[in-house]
């Protein structure tokens, strides 16, 4: 296991804890995208470019959009 993989895994562990512990919803939207980015780096280092591409487009576009819309609708209601 090369040091690059160890560093990527440490980042993923830290961001997973951050996503579970945060309470503010706007920060949660941002943090979930950042967690998806760390997962992309981890998947690339595990030699899986297809999976990394999939997680990148989903975590960068689709997931934040639905979360932000849900947050705005919660505030407005």
């Amino acid at each position, binding site marked *: *296991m090369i040091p690059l993989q160890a560093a990527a895994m440490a980042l993923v562990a830290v961001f997973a804890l951050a996503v579970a512990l945060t309470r503010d919803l706007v920060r949660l939207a941002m943090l979930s995208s950042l967690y998806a980015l760390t997962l992309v780096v981890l998947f690339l280092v595990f030699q899986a470019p297809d999976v990394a591409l999939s997680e990148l*487009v989903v975590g960068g576009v*689709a997931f934040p959009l639905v979360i932000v819309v849900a947050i705005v609708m919660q505030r407005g209601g």
Partner: protein
Amino acid sequence: MTRQLRIGLFAVSASGLAALLLWAVAGLPDFGHYRQRYGLLLQQVAVGERHATNVVTAVVFDYRGFDTLGEELILFASVIGVALLLREVRDEAARLRDRMRSDAVGLIGIGFAAGLLVLGLYVIAHGPITPGGGFQGGVVVAAAFAIAYLAGDYRAYRRLTPQPALDFVEGVGAGGYAVVGIVSMLLGSAYLYNFGPLGEPGTLASAGSISILNIAVALEVSAAFVLLFTEFLEELSVMRAQGR
């Protein structure tokens, strides 16, 4: 059950679960010493048999094509669920004109949307050759339409994505996958068996029915995600129009 009691119960059971899980994964082979024969066999024969240089796409659409049929039907069903929950008869006049006021953002956004559309089509078309495929490229194409909303008018976005067209394209994608399997049966082999001209590995027209299934999945995924975005954004614009 109070909150404190629930969290205490969770702490006890989660430590037990974590201990059991760690003991379970300690029985796996060492990280990096992969021993299963199926994966190693696939690496040696996949390019020769199917003429697809991206072995992952060959697995998704050919060797494990039946699982992909199930996965895309999950996607289809959950988009139907979202449409059922959020789509209702809405008053046309009560819709707010949701316009981005900056021309610079609009211009840059349209440039990005065009670029993203081309990138999405490139990723879809090169599925059997390089990393990519219908799933990834479909989401990129849907993202191009979402940028049209973010950079401009909500009404412009709705004009670009008419509801009947989206429903039709998604149905064609999901049903087309199942029908291609039946064509394979009519040609005398098993359901979803590879057929068609195999071509030269590394060119765009290769890998037989993998390319056709790739396009069906790309149609379905892009239409499904645009429908998803439309349902959510419609709900938002109705809520803003009612002044809530």
